[in-house]
């Protein structure tokens, strides 16, 4: 008989106990996270709904024009218009709110963490396996504690998205800060810069192009999470996909799906365009 002997380790049970413990012990913290996340989403959504649809499309065209070209701008505008004709305009606004909130929170958390990892070898050693786990763990798994902490809804979606999308910006920030040319650091030092001046005036600006690449990846991953996140109650395009699966509604599924693709294209190209801007005056060594 080749089957494994009956030894049970119950690791899962311990994790559950740990999550319980966290929920009780850190209630205040979770309330705070809930408060901040929901405020961010609501704020962004309110703003987007406040904009007339045509003004939003014009803004998208202008942004596309500024960072890429007039042709791209018009194409992006057309994409948005098409989503509107699918009857998914409000859902798209919701999705954008969730993604943008998740990305903002990722940056606020991720950049300082990445910087600290670049400065502290010890911290970096501790963080690496955690980041690996965050990225490789199937994303459905952390939907469960998300519901546990925040209940069904957009905040849980953001929490799950955070865990999945946070690693790239942290990693690339660390890489970027470590990668700043040694001589440039020394020249800043030789003028008597304080550590803070060094970070703000030299290291971060020098690292910015690489950090922007991290932002791009983080954004794309946040977008990739919208369907999965809808399983914990996120509204928007992801929810429509989920509904269409349940109803086997091919038409809706396609429309919602292609809308997500349109969003992905626009966000990817625009964040790339921003990164190129920063890169403009730096040739690769």
């Amino acid at each position, binding site marked *: 008989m080749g089957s494994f002997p009956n030894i049970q380790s119950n690791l899962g049970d311990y994790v559950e106990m740990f999550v319980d413990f966290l929920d009780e012990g850190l209630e205040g913290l979770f309330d705070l996270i809930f408060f901040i996340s929901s405020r961010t989403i609501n704020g962004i959504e309110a703003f987007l709904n406040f904009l007339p649809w045509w003004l939003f499309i014009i803004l998208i065209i202008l942004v596309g024009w500024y960072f890429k070209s007039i042709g791209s701008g018009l194409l992006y505008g057309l994409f948005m218009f098409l989503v509107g004709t699918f009857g998914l305009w409000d859902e798209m606004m919701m999705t954008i709110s969730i993604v943008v909130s998740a990305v903002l929170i990722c940056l606020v958390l991720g950049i300082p963490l990445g910087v600290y990892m670049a400065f502290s070898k010890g911290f970096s050693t501790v963080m690496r396996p955690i980041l690996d786990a965050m990225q490789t763990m199937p994303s459905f798994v952390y939907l469960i504690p998300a519901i546990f902490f925040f209940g069904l809804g957009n905040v849980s979606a953001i929490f799950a998205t955070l865990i999945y999308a946070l690693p790239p910006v942290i990693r690339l920030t660390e890489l970027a800060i470590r990668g700043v040319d040694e001589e*440039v650091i020394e*020249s800043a030092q*030789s*003028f*008597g810069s304080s550590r803070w001046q060094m970070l703000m005036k030299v290291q971060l*600006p020098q690292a910015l192009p690489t950090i922007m690449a991290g932002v791009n990846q983080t954004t794309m991953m946040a977008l990739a999470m919208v369907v999965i996140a809808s399983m914990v109650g996120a509204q928007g395009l992801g929810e429509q996909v989920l509904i269409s699966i349940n109803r086997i509604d091919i038409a809706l599924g396609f429309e919602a799906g292609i809308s997500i693709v349109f969003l992905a294209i626009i966000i990817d190209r625009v964040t790339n365009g921003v990164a190129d801007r920063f890169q403009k005056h*730096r*040739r690769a060594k």
Partner: protein
Amino acid sequence: MAENKIKIDHVSKIFGPKPKTIAPMIKEGKSKDEILAETGHTVGVYDASMEINEGEVFVIMGLSGSGKSTLIRCFNLLNKPTDGAIYVDGENIVEYKTPQLKKFRQDKIAMVFQHFGLFNHRTILGNVEYGLEIKNMSKEERQKIAQENIELVGLKGYEDKYPDELSGGMQQRVGLARALANDPDILLMDEPFSALDPLIRRDMQLELLDIQERLKKTIVFITHDVNEAFKIGDRVAVMKDGKVVQVGTPESILEAPANDYISDFIKDIDRSKVFQAEHVMIKPNALVSLKDGLNVAVKEMQQNGISSVFVVDRGRHLKGIVTIDAAIEGIKQKKSLEDVVDTDVTTVAKEDYINDIIPKALESKFPLAVTNKEDKLEGFILRVHVLSGLVADDIEESKEYHGYYQATNNQTIEDIEK
């Protein structure tokens, strides 16, 4: 202590896990290789001592890996010496705490880097004002100073460009302007021109000397190029395996290299660009004053066995030269010394390099007259002297030659001055 700007006092820098524990081995006299073999530590600088004077260009040269960068980086504590003291204006900077060190770096010392070390996210103006910005100087004031320094290095009009839009030579000018903007007493330059191609490099060397002439900074300059070292250095230190093996003026090192390493190093040097007129000239053992007249001139020439003699006025300013033939002819025709003196004498300055003197020596029918800054006659140069300056092996002989003339000479000049 007061007159030297920087004093390096038995400084050692050791790289490895426990450098402090290795320092005593240097005092015991163990070599760099022995220490590496026994402990795995690399000795970057091995018990170096030197003094650098205010306002001089001090060059440190040596082969790759000889510890030049390691040493110069001790001067602003980018490297902290493992052992020894560094005095700047009499203060041991090695003992500085963070705030003092920050202030020292902000006010007293600036560095120019081999690969420029520019901030490519800032414009040229932004780069040059950086040192002032971190001292919290007002925007208006610091931009004014930055602008002046950009103009000083000849980059007016490039303020809003980014470093990557400039050529290598221009980028290093930015590096220089950025260092000068802080108005430091001391300028550290670690192979600043090595990354530039030869023509640009020569321009930059001249420009540095030009700027130095105006600003009178104390400059510590690193190079592995002997010609560069001897061209711009007032004094030169030669390093080998982390040790300082010789310190001296370029001429003194050329004339008396301390060991084979240095002889080897300097064998390719273009001596004509190091030796100056004053190093090869001979002090005249006979001079004639205008008021002395022709008879005295003839007598002087006969006594000294020479065929021509320089004529000077009371202030020892050169009036011309008179040959024995012209003098005798003049006496016959009852002419005065003033009538027969030949003014077609080529003069060179004491500081002129032999390189520049060679063509003049070839063209002139008389010896070249060597004058000092006040235009007074200091000596003369024959073609044979020019040659002797170019050939290393002849140095010993030509020294004797100098000695011989000097012994008889000073006295003559003094006589005339009376």
